[in-house]
């Protein structure tokens, strides 16, 4: 129980260059890296990519081991993906390693399985590099600014950003509350880890109902408080921290460009 094991999505405050980059740079950068990741054709390419990611972690002064901890909850998924690819990769004539009933594992399949798994791990690690170095608030601001040109096309950038801001503000509160309600019901003899799926699902009703009631009450209170503070939507609103491009952002884009060029060159 508890949510303390999760490292995905966590922000680790710090003062590195990566921490100080404009959030828009980091959003575009990570998106770019993820796209590149899917174009990297070989293990050697993945190695190069991993080296780049490791370098970025060094720049951010965060231990890559900490990012790997974020993978732990995904191990089942990783193993499953690797096995699926090992057995079902469309291979014309691979060297058969072993058979398992009707299933057949080929050398080619195993390679594909490991490749896909490695790619997934890098995907998680590269994304967590962004969340580790960017506070949720900056992330939201960055998204809002990136979406601003699309506001005219009906993309509700401000509303999305405001929703995200509020969600980020209340997620810790609601997690704490969930923990507290679970414990309160356990003090009344509840058990959340016994019985079949149905019994477990039913055991959560005494947690979910109070949580919903509380969430509704909180949202009503918050709406009232926002109204009392003259909130009336995005129109006419200004921001205390306007985002501004810095020299470091230009450097970051140059690094990205170099990496993209490398990928193109490898695939040539």
């Amino acid at each position: 129980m508890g949510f303390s094991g999760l490292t995905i999505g966590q922000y680790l405050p710090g003062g590195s260059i990566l921490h100080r980059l404009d959030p828009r740079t980091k959003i575009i950068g990570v998106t770019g890296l993820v796209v590149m990741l899917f174009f990297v054709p070989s293990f050697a390419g993945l190695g190069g990519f991993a080296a780049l990611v490791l370098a970025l972690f060094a720049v951010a002064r965060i231990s890559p081991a900490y990012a790997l901890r974020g993978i732990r909850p995904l191990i089942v998924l990783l193993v499953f993906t690797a096995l699926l690819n090992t057995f079902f990769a469309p291979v014309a004539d691979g060297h058969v390693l072993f058979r398992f009933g009707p299933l057949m594992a080929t050398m080619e399949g195993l390679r594909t399985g490991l490749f896909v798994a490695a790619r997934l791990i890098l995907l998680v690690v590269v994304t967590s590099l962004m969340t580790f170095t960017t506070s949720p608030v900056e992330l939201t601001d960055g998204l809002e600014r990136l979406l601003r040109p699309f506001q005219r096309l009906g993309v509700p950038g401000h509303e999305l950003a405001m929703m995200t801001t509020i969600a980020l503000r209340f997620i810790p509160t609601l997690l704490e509350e969930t923990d507290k309600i679970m414990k309160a019901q356990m003090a009344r003899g509840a058990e959340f880890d016994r019985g079949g799926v149905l019994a477990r699902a039913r055991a959560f009703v005494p947690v979910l109902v109070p949580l919903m009631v509380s969430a509704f009450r909180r949202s009503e209170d918050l709406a009232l408080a926002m109204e009392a503070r003259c909130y009336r939507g995005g129109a006419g609103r200004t921001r205390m921290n306007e985002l501004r491009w810095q020299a470091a952002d230009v450097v970051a884009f140059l690094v990205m460009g170099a990496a993209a060029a490398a990928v193109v060159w490898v695939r040539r």
Partner: protein
Amino acid sequence: MRSWRRGARAVAEPLLECLEVSHTYRRGTPFEATALQGVTVRIVAGQIVAIIGPTGSGKSTLIQHFNGLLRPSSGVVRVNGMDLWAAGADRRRARQQIGLVFQFPEYQLFEETVRRDVAYGPRNLGLDEVAVAERVDEALRQVGLDPHRFGERSPFTLSGGEMRRVALAGVLAMRPQALVLDEPTAGLDPRARRELLDRIEAWHRQGITIVLVTHNMDEAARLAGHVIVMHEGRVVLQGAPAEVFGREADLRAIGLDLPLAARLVRELRRRGLAVGDALTMTQARRAILTALRGRDHGV
């Protein structure tokens, strides 16, 4: 539970004991935080114990060890002699014996009717419907709610004070030996606060051991026979109220104040009026009258 053991050690064996209990949250992450450090407390059956301390001193973390909701990072917790974290320990039984009521417990109500909500605990104990119904009625009466008037109502239509009492009934219906209450009067208006304190005293007279976590020194002084003071995850002071509240400088150093009556006595002494000790307003009244009259006749 064997009778020879009971007979021989009934006085010595506390209902609940924590020995050198430490607790660290989020161990091994950059957010690691030590909440308790080597805490040893014993709660003897029949006591009213107050746990006081500033916010963040570890009070809430400590009481969650009392019924095995939290596992100590090190140290031992025993309820009626049973080590809660020994292999095969029956923690559900400990949770029945030590009834824990969180702060603002009305936020944990979930059923459609008051009766069904209060029945949740006894049902989890596996009792039959007759026994459950009997306990629900009894618990509702213990909190001063008429089962016939309130039983079929939705808890969400009640006033805040009534909801709090329903939540308390939900724990009383487990028939615990001890009731651990985290800030039970928080947010109540003065009258509801006084009524609840009277009820807590009544439960104590019925034989329930009471552990009261409170910020309110007046409540601690009025109810408790034993006061435990916590600061930064440690027990820094414990003893009878007169003893603990006699250490004004120590309490001030950790941001705690004296009960109102003791503050009045202090002010009077500062002004040269020799009054006796007082922890409650009733005691203060008596001490002041004695001081004033004593002077009249004595000089």
